């Protein structure tokens, strides 16, 4: 551990907060229809979209109409993406398939399509050996934008439900979606993409280049329109890399500076949404309280991850390596890490990406120490409310807030109420089911995959003999259920002997189980969040009295953290024990 490593973590928290606050103010203006400085640029395209799509943006929808629009739109997106990916050679005429890749098999494509629709971006494939530039651009990048837009729309709809005092309307899905794409996602993506190219990321449509190195060995380098996709991959907490090794690849993440920028890009909208919420709810302290909850847990996770990775692994020590920091060497567990990021830059990225639904990686999670690998698992076990994905983090933590208010109300013997509205049986039933869907999906899928021989097929050969194999499986379904997308990448679903997918096949069990898990654990909670918005919208607001439990003070922050940790721990502790905790506690090496 080094001073600069700790400084990186602290500076990150500070800069994130400083960026998120003005972004929150800006987004509040965007979603309440107030003027912003980008209006001259986007007003006309916005009107054009509404005209072409036959949308009446003034038409306010109730929760069922909102949900219906969202589901039908997502279905359209799913069908189009599946079509694009399964007809990859059909688009060769665009010149955007210079390597002439064929389509991946139906089961892998099912998994990939479901994955990108649900903001997961779980990739059983490697980008540079499977996807044409057209697929990456017109297929995957599009869903990077749209899945982010859908997530944010749901969060905004829930906020409107919580604060809404008249009628059952929670907004217009189409307006929220278009506004998000135009005012929020596009401008920031452009800025980030250009920063990346400036630092060395690539952006071209060239063939892969072949060459002979100085010693005469033949080699090739993959190319493509990387920076544009990389920017929205991080900004929309998607996580699907252009290349197989994701943000470890020098073309996706060339320098220590871009590493810092990418991490900020991942968290800036989730953090900004919290401040936006405070503004829209007319109670900024409420936003600060939720932000504080998230920041405390985030910082804790960073500390554990950094210390664990700096320590080094039993395998390293058994081989005789010394893992202390010495002059000129990073020390620590450098297996599956890049030199330019070091231990702190990798551990921090790993935490950033797993507290949200991003799932991009700049280091191999499978190679982390036992405890170091338990941190992303713990982050996922908290159902990604520590900042969380764009939109999903906020609506998930708001469900936890309602739960905490309910528990708090029980403890003091008062009717629970939040921002003046009574939380009654109907609300809490929806909240409870909404919060349990994702953990249950993760655990059931893990159990099924571990118990059945078809499921165990996916475990990597090196891991099959010990707790690592369980960790791989558990992480896979935990990640897919939480729509994260990071992986213990030895866990397979696609066997690809050649680049371009000829002669390849998918592992149907893993592909389908994963695909359904992602779809279920994304859309079911969305429906419940919208239903909660629906029951709260237009509810009578009673003024705060002497007995009202405050939700914007440090006591509530402690209560909220307690509820999140308790629910996560009770649900996942047994599973965590079987995998990463065993690995962390033992120096034993498994075959």
């Amino acid at each position: 551990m080094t001073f600069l490593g700790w400084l990186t973590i602290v500076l990150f928290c500070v800069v994130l907060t400083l960026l998120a606050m003005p972004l929150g103010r800006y987004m509040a203006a965007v979603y309440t229809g107030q003027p912003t400085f980008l209006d001259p640029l986007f007003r006309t395209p916005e009107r054009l979209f509404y005209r072409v799509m036959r949308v009446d943006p003034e038409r306010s929808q109730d929760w069922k109409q909102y949900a219906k629009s969202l589901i039908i739109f997502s279905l359209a997106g799913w069908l189009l993406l599946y079509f694009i990916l399964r007809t990859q050679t059909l688009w060769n005429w665009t010149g955007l398939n210079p390597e002439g890749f064929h389509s991946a098999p139906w089961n892998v494509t099912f998994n990939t399509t479901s994955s990108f629709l649900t903001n997961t971006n779980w990739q059983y494939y490697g980008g540079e050996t499977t996807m044409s530039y057209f697929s990456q651009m017109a297929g995957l990048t599009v869903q990077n934008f749209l899945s982010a837009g859908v997530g944010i729309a749901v969060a905004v709809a829930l906020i409107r439900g919580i604060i809404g005092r008249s009628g059952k309307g929670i907004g217009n899905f189409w307006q929220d979606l278009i506004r998000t794409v135009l005012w929020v996602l596009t401008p920031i993506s452009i800025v980030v993409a250009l920063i990346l190219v400036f630092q060395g990321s690539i952006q071209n449509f060239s063939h892969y280049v072949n060459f002979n190195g100085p010693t005469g060995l033949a080699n090739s380098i993959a190319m493509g329109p990387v920076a544009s996709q990389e920017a929205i991959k991080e900004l929309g907490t998607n996580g699907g890399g252009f290349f197989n090794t994701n943000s470890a690849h020098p073309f996706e993440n060339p320098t220590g500076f871009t590493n810092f920028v990418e991490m900020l890009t991942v968290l800036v909208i989730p953090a900004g949404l919290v401040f936006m919420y405070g503004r829209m709810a007319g109670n900024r302290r409420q936003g600060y309280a939720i932000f504080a909850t998230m920041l405390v847990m985030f910082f804790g996770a960073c500390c554990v991850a950094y210390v664990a990775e700096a320590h080094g692994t039993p395998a390293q020590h058994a081989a005789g390596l010394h893992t202390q920091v010495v002059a000129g060497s990073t020390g620590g567990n450098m297996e599956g890490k890049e030199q330019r990021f070091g231990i702190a830059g990798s551990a921090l990225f790993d935490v950033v990406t797993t507290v949200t639904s991003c799932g991009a990686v700049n280091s191999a999670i499978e190679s982390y120490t036992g405890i170091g690998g338990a941190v992303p698992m713990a982050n996922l076990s908290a159902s990604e409310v520590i900042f969380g994905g764009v939109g999903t983090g906020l609506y998930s933590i708001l469900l936890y807030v309602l739960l905490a208010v309910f528990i708090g109300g029980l403890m003091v013997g008062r009717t629970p109420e939040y921002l003046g509205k009574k939380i009654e049986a109907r609300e809490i039933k929806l909240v409870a089911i909404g919060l349990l869907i994702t953990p249950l999906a993760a655990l059931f899928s893990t159990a099924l995959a571990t118990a059945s021989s078809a499921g165990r097929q996916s475990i990597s050969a090196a891991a099959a003999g010990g707790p690592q194999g369980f960790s791989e499986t558990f992480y896979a379904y935990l990640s897919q259920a939480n729509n994260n997308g990071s992986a213990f990448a030895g866990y397979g679903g696609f066997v690809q002997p050649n680049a371009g997918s000829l002669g390849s096949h998918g592992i149907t069990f893993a592909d389908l189980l994963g695909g359904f898990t992602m779809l279920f654990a994304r859309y079911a909670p969305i429906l419940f969040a919208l239903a909660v918005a629906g029951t709260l919208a237009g509810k009578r607001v009673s003024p705060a009295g002497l007995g009202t439990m405050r939700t914007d003070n440090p006591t509530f922050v402690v209560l909220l953290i307690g509820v999140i940790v308790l629910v996560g721990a009770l649900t996942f502790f047994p599973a965590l024990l079987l995998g990463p905790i065993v690995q962390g506690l033992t120096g034993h090496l498994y075959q």
Partner: protein
Amino acid sequence: MKRDIITSAIGILVLTLFCGILYPLVITGISQVAFPGNADGQLVHVDGKLVGSQEIGQNFGLQVYKNGKPVMQNGVPVTNPDPRYFQTRPSATVPPNNAAATTFSNLGPNSVATEQEISGNIQAYIALNGPYYPGKLRAANVPVDAANTSASGIDPDISVRNADIQAHRVAAVRHLSLAAVMTLVNKYTGGRGLGFSGEPGVNVLELNLALDRMNGVHA
């Protein structure tokens, strides 16, 4: 319902045009004009021939021959490290440092396979650099980045300590002074982002090409 279907169908198409065609084209257009070298991958040419990218690590090895024929293992050429050049980090791509099919090693923290891989890398490193190193090179003084596989498999950098150890071999084999080699190492050592983010790394390709220029191997 019907309204939603029509709006969805049209919407997905126009949004695909906007986000999937227009947006990447705009970024590509600006990038190719403003940062053409970067946008194409910081490719490096020597004597008019492409020898790699500044951002991509390479295998500086020599093909092993047996009876005049190149030795292959599973269709992959077998190589030995070229002692004249600095070597990059261990790589899990097939063949090593294949920048068209990057992959992680995915070796876990508690497995025998990992320990064997690390030991193998340590032995190779000591065999290559030990004879030239003042004093005895043991596992305990091998820097972690030389024994552990990189994440991308094409890590262009090595740690400063790794470079320092290899410098002894390179200087001896090329008949250069150690000081001259170390000057080059320092020249191609990159700093941290904004002074704090990340770790310094020595760019192996640039360093090796500079050595070739110094030895008069290439113009």
